[in-house]
């Protein structure tokens, strides 16, 4: 069976379709605004799942077992400043899409966020109480609630900040670029999270789908670190001499929507179920990963 990927022009969706192509498994991706070759147009504001039957060449909805919903407005401050517009996509449209997927017998795989937690203590497990403080987290929680109350099979993947080590990611490459330009960056020591290698998340989604697992899983790296630590690791591992990193508090950085402090998550359930080993940040940045692979 093939999978559908909603939002395949975005960061995770793009990597996921690449991952599936590499594994020689069938996947069809959609875009809504940023047109991309090979992807099918799909408007999440007015979702019409059946329309895909005519826009996909040689395939129909019954060829798909799962649909991964990566499409959403992920700019957190925008969810605060433009609540209605973002709600229409992130909640109303997404819920409609999920309901249509249920009707077509396709299992929705919803990508949620660590921001459904309030960040007061960190190390959150799947069952912990969700009390989002960000508008973005509140929107995601509403879709989660909808899934949990549906009585249907679904897969809910909560992930954290995702990064890649090449090309188009903001977390590592963006940071490295700014440092190389000689910038002095203020990084919060009190904002703790579990930055996760995007390729691990793609792999995790593949495993969950292939084994037909349903329910809620935290798919994030093992180690919780602060923004400041992240920047220091990147600077050191990539050997960047230029620029500087200065510790600060998240409160000193002005965001439209105030960020929760410690949203780190516990990935035990997923790891115990599958035996998966997450890539550590240092490993992703360095050569160790290849060396670990080559050991015979």
């Amino acid at each position: 069976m093939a999978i559908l990927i909603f939002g395949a022009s975005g960061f995770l969706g793009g990597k996921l379709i690449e991952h599936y192509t590499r594994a020689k498994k069938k996947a069809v991706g959609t875009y809504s605004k940023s047109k991309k070759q090979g992807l099918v147009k799909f408007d999440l504001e007015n979702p019409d799942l059946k329309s895909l039957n005519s826009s996909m060449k040689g395939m129909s909805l019954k060829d798909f077992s799962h649909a991964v919903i990566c499409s959403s407005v992920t700019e957190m401050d925008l969810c605060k400043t433009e609540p209605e517009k973002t709600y229409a996509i992130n909640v109303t449209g997404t819920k409609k899409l999920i309901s249509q997927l249920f009707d077509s017998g396709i299992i929705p795989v919803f990508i949620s966020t660590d921001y459904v937690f309030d960040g007061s203590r960190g190390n959150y497990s799947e069952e912990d109480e969700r009390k989002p403080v960000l508008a973005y987290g509140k929107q995601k929680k509403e879709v989660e609630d909808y899934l949990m109350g549906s009585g249907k099979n679904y897969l809910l993947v909560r992930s954290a900040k995702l990064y890649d080590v090449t090309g188009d990611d903001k977390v590592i490459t963006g940071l490295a670029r700014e440092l190389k330009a000689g910038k002095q960056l203020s990084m919060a020591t009190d904002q703790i999270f579990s930055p996760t290698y995007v390729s691990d998340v793609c792999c995790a989604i593949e495993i969950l789908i292939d084994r037909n697992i349903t329910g809620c899983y935290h798919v994030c790296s093992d180690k919780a670190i602060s923004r400041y630590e992240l920047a220091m690791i990147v600077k050191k591992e990539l050997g960047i001499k230029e620029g500087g990193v200065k510790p600060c508090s998240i409160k000193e950085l002005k965001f439209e929507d105030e960020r929760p402090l410690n949203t780190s998550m516990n990935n035990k359930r997923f790891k115990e179920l599958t035996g998966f080993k997450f890539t550590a940040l240092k490993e992703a940045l360095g050569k160790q990963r290849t060396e670990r692979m080559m050991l015979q």
Partner: protein
Amino acid sequence: MKFLIIGASGFIGSSTLEYLKSQGFEALGTQSSSKIPGLVEYDIQKHSIKKQVPAGFFKDKDVYCLICVAASKIDYCYQYKKESHAINVESTIKLIDELKSLGATPIFISSSTVFDGKTGYYNEKSKTNPICEYGRQKLEVEEYLLKKVPGSVIIRLDKVLGDLPYYNHLLAEMFRLIQAGKTVECFQGCILSPTYVKDVSKAVLLCSQKKLSGLFHISNSEFFTREELARQFGMALGFETKIISKPMEEFQLLDKRPMKSYFDGSKFVKATGMRFTSMHSVFDEFKKKMNLGPEEAKK
């Protein structure tokens, strides 16, 4: 005739280099990072092989190059598809192209994972159908060689093991468990052709001496289930062995493995007259060496 062993710090590479030298052949080995004296540094992702070996190395006729280097862990290949593909396919093909242009004959090590393991007893004509990423990558290189490099040799191996308790191979793994009084856990329903690593080295030499080309299954004609291999091995060592078998799903593996991966190796035997070492003899060798230190055992 001379030999270049790419990846001579690994299990098969080091055994083959040693064997060829012991038979009086000129043989050079490469390594990527671990520092073993006497090996040439060569990183398959970075270097040109011609620039790494001594000048004029490829001027001779009949240079055979055994390609042992690979990201060979099945689950790593699954988790890091892109990175492993870069090593196992893209860089390997680049090396093959370079060898071709230098007039050397590549001997590529492939694997029983190109099969799905449903029927077992595979010969060279059996239909391939890899069920894991590693197998797909191996098959991609096989297909490239068959199409683009006539004269090259592909040797498919199933389970290769040795007689030393220090390397990472199936017998050494089992030995550590048996010795510690722990239970050996086996994949239920797996059937494999355990083949002595020194036989693989001999087979590499035979491929070049007999000027073979194309696809060969290099395999002992004996085959065992995992449980039976563990039981026989334990008995030969004189240990009481606790064995249980569990379905593969209970092992928390990321990617799939073929269940019946054992080979019909008669094509190679017919072509060369090679006699494979029985597992009994391998167990006996292992027993002689199991109480020796790493240096003594190697002698």
